[in-house]
């Protein structure tokens, strides 16, 4: 059948949301159905858009006729498709994992017990989240972004509190507050931009001359809000407890995907709408990112809770994403494609690897019933596959070849060296070593056979396989990097102006 490719986009957004509604019903069958629908729609949408975009560049579709100049529209280019693909990839694995993770909830009694609530509400929340993420990647105007951000924030915060512990609740609440405040900042920025530019379409805004204080303030506010949601360095404190407290699949989603949503918006704003903005602004972002790399890694090194460690590593890895900004627009003017591909490829490979790690960590804690590094001794022998999944994910994170992380790091390094940005180059290298340090700390406990864990629960194969497959993909990303990156280039001219 011949479809206007943009319908794929609509499918990508609406599919998961509707599937979420189905899953709300709560019985295992409904949940499975919903997840299947969500997976199907997202994968289909991604595939369709991938083909379409790589064939004939970016796509636009005015929703309900509100086109340019108002521009309430769907927009898809290489970047969007890459993020969609990332979401679909990780999402599928996590969905499969979750079906095994929450155990059997066929009896109503179990479903309604506090423990069962997690099992019951995970799927719908996740599907809403999925829909909103796809929406964010596909929306072409900033107000839609706000709405979708709110959906994302609410369902994400709720997902944290699925774990029925006081810590989880507090962490979730804090997360909610932060993300609501962040959205408010964003909305204020939107308002100011509209007043200045009279349009909401990012493409339209990009064509305007956004000089003067007001746009600058708007950009600053939006960036601040999104930085808070992305847990950029000084505002990162909410992330570790939240991501650590959520049930494992939730942690994977939060760390791998949700933070990328707000990061994506920052990229759109700085690169596309503002075409680099001011060099100093880029530097600020980069420096904060740099600090995040070091700080997050050191914090991770000092954790004893496995999931908290991984969460802190997320803080550090997000720092890498921000290092991209100053590299994108070299001091001498111009544009560094290496930094562009490198940064976004890092986003992609981080998503895959981090999800693999969290899922693996989930399996470990699931097996030993404790979220403590010291408790996982011997896991390497009981759960070799999980162990390898965690290891491979970690190595990809640290940029050990062959892995997506390595390719990303290579590109970032190259752009840094080309611009003579030795500080950045050293930072990237050192960050990699620190990453290794905490990954190895975990592995070292896992191989330790001196003390046997007292209680050891069998882990469903599906969980192990889900984590392993993600890890292998992270590995594969290091060997076939050409295709995804070519997609990035296919997505029209970068930046727009």
């Amino acid at each position: 059948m011949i479809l206007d490719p943009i319908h794929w986009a609509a499918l990508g957004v609406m599919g998961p949301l509707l599937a979420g509604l189905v899953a709300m019903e709560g019985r295992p069958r409904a949940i499975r159905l919903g997840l299947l629908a969500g997976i199907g729609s997202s994968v289909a949408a991604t595939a369709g858009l991938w083909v379409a975009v790589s064939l004939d560049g970016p796509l636009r579709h005015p929703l309900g006729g509100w086109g340019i100049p108002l521009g309430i529209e769907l927009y898809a280019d290489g970047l969007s498709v890459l993020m969609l693909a990332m979401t679909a990839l990780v999402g599928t694995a996590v969905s499969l994992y979750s079906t095994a993770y929450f155990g059997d909830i066929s009896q109503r009694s179990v479903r309604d017990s506090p423990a069962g609530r997690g099992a019951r509400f995970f799927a719908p929340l996740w599907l809403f989240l999925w829909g909103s993420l796809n929406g964010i990647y596909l929306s072409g105007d900033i107000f839609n972004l706000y709405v979708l951000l709110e959906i994302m924030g609410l369902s994400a915060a709720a997902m944290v509190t699925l774990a029925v512990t006081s810590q989880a609740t507090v962490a979730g609440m804090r997360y909610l507050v932060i993300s609501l405040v962040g959205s408010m900042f964003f909305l204020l920025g939107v308002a100011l931009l509209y007043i200045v530019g009279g349009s909401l379409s990012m493409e339209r805004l990009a064509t305007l001359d956004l000089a003067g204080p007001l746009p600058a303030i708007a950009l600053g506010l939006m960036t601040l809000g999104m930085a808070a949601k992305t847990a950029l360095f000084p505002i990162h404190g909410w992330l570790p407890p939240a991501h650590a407290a959520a049930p494992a699949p939730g942690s994977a989603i939060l760390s791998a995907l949700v933070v990328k949503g707000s990061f994506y918006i920052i990229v759109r704003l700085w690169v596309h709408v503002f075409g680099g903005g001011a060099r100093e602004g880029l530097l600020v972002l980069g420096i904060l990112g740099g600090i995040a790399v070091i700080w997050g890694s050191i914090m991770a090194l000092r954790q004893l809770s496995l999931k908290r460690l991984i969460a802190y590593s997320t803080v550090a890895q997000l720092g890498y994403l921000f290092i991209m900004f100053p590299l994108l627009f070299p001091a001498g003017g111009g544009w560094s494609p290496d930094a562009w591909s490198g940064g976004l490829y890092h986003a992609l490979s981080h998503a895959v690897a981090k999800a693999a790690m969290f899922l693996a960590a989930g399996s470990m804690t699931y097996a030993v019933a404790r979220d403590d590094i010291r408790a996982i001794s011997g896991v390497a022998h009981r759960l070799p596959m999980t162990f390898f999944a965690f290891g491979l994910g970690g190595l990809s994170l640290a940029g050990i070849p062959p892995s997506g992380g390595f390719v990303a790091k290579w590109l970032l390094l190259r752009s840094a060296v080309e611009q003579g940005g030795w500080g950045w180059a050293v930072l990237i290298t050192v960050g990699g070593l620190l990453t290794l340090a905490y990954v190895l700390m975990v592995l070292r406990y896992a191989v330790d056979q001196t003390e046997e864990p007292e209680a050891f629960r069998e882990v469903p194969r599906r969980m192990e396989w889900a984590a392993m497959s993600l890890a292998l993909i992270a590995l594969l990303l290091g060997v076939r990097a050409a295709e995804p990156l070519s997609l990035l280039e296919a997505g029209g001219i970068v930046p727009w102006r």
Partner: protein
Amino acid sequence: MTPLALYTAAGVGLFAAGLWGVVTRAHLFWKVLGINIMGGGIFLILLAAPPRLDPLHADPVPQAMVLTGIVVAVAATAVALGMALRVAARTGRPFLDEDVPNRSAGEDDPGSGRE
């Protein structure tokens, strides 16, 4: 002083006040309230947006935005209050306690959805 400037100033003031509340007030209810006040400030600014097409008719877009915004805000507030209540129920106090032990998360956190 143009109405836009006036409204904008007022809006920003509200925004700041709300933020102040969110940050300084420990009680969750105040925080939620603060967020709503911030939203209110933004809506004020939007409504003051100058007519874009012709000076007689107001610009429908900001109004649409405000309406949507209010809907979203209501939903968010609901969720937030609900969660605040649960916090109160779980910890016994409607605050975001900071003294979550850091290096010993292992003891009281099974780390997965079962208990």
